[in-house]
């Protein structure tokens, strides 16, 4: 079973990202579940969402406390929440940032076997005109990068799931996912 935790801010599409990832894995024939942690959501407040992917039926309906992967959609969350909390040994953090991974790694408190990957998803989203410049919608870009660094889902099923779930700018979202898939950096 693979468990993924998404950190975002209300309005960035973290919940939809967790659903799209589940749908992409479902397209590949996996069993899936995805759910948000619901506080009482407000635009801009920290949001957490989760995805489980497995080969057999998923019966565990409780929360995810020790994820294999953590996806951070907003770099400002690094100062607001402990994004590496519970991350499994050998786990991976994917961060939306323009900063060099080496500079970040030291600040995150990752153990030597835990990996870090970065993607400038905000720039990619703006380039493809997803959302506004002040509030870009980064989920399709982040998911493209996630497909590459995690190997959990293929790019084509992911793009299928993106196309099915985004309400507008379907081709732009697909293009952003593809660009992020190709440009993600793993340390």
């Amino acid at each position, binding site marked *: 079973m693979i468990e993924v935790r998404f950190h975002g801010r209300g309005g960035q599409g973290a919940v939809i990202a967790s*659903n799209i990832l*589940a*749908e992409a894995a*479902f397209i590949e024939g996996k*069993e*899936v*579940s*995805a*759910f*948000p942690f*619901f506080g*009482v959501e407000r635009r801009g407040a920290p949001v957490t969402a989760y995805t489980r992917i497995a080969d057999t039926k*998923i*019966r*565990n*309906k*409780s*929360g995810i*406390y020790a994820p294999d992967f953590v996806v951070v959609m907003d770099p400002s969350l690094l100062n607001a929440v402990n994004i590496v909390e519970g991350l499994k040994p050998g786990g991976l953090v994917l961060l939306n940032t323009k900063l060099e991974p080496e500079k970040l790694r030291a600040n995150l408190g990752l153990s030597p076997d835990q990996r870090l990957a970065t993607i400038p998803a905000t720039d990619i989203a703006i380039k493809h005109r997803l959302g506004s410049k002040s509030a870009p919608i980064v989920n399709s870009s982040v998911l493209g990068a996630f497909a590459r660094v995690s190997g959990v889902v293929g790019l084509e099923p992911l793009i299928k799931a993106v196309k099915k779930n985004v309400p507008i700018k379907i081709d732009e979202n697909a293009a952003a996912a593809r660009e992020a898939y190709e440009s993600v950096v793993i340390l």
Partner: protein
Amino acid sequence: MKMVMTGNYASAYGAKVCRAEVISAYPITPQTSIVEKIATLVSSGEMKAQFVKVESEHSAMAALISASMTGARTYTATSSHGLLLMHELLIWAAGARTPIVMSNVCRANGPPWSVWADHHDAIAQRDTGWMQVFCEGNQEVLDSIIMAYKLGENPNIRLPTMINEDAFILSHTVEPVDVPEMEDVDDFLPPYNPRFKLDVDEPYGFGSLVMPEMYMEFRFKINEAMEAARQGWRDVEKDFEKKFGRNHGGMVEFYQCEDADAVLIMAGSIASTAKDVVDKLRSEGKKVGLARIRIFRPFPVEEIRKLAGMTNILAMCDHSYTFGHWGPMAQEVRGALYDLADKPLLKNYIVGLGGKDMTPEVIEKIYLKTLALKDGLDADIEWIGVKGHGGW
């Protein structure tokens, strides 16, 4: 078609494939996306139904009682305080013998304010005359709606049904769900056509005053229907399985109970997680089982009595409470076992109120505690995970 969807969308699609004709609902967290989805399906023409907008849950239920009395198939959804506001009309709906189907997204009641999973809202409607189903997954949510119309509209039953799905754990969690083709549902579920209905061309009186010599007879008939619904649920699920190839375990789903040293009884989504725990403990040689109460009203007395022949230690994990007298499901289980000469031990745990997460680790601890009762009960009732009172 198999799709990935939330429990709330499974509810909306359940109403759609059953061709519910009149929908009336008022939004409340975490039920809102059921109403939004149905409103979208109706406005796009995918669902041919009349959506009656109202100012409260009380009015939503009143609208559906009237619509159902004209012979329409009706559906609504609510949660928590919305359900509590409906209480008066719930009793009316059962009394009027209107086979309304309602999804209740089980959510804790305030204060303190909470939007998370808890069965107190549904349990507080125990005596309204509604049949009640507790679901552990989204497929079961959808399938139970189809079964509820089939059974509820049966002329020998003619009762409303509440389909309970846990807040967020099902309502906002996406899972693969097989949405049946409408043609297949049509074969299984014929149109609703009651013998007596509100019809200006063939007028009858409904719900008016009866003198004391007749009131009790109406109550007797409701109870007769509820008693008949016990076998009704067993039969409708068998018919459903023949048509759709799925079942959800009958009135009580038994999981690894046959030779168990201890069995936990649960209802709702926590039972799903508990199955993983049972497998883990069994792999370590600990003989534990799980019984999941799927139908709460009518209460599955015979199934619960069967448990007495399977194990010596039973523990009911109530996801709600009755202040002053155990957990409500524990009372029912205890009552069902009372007449048996050879009774298992019965302990009551109160768990997961207001969304306190029931992780596999917590459930495992409950199993280990329960196995340790082989020498006798330590207490009748124990609240699990309460800070300052043995909270883990």
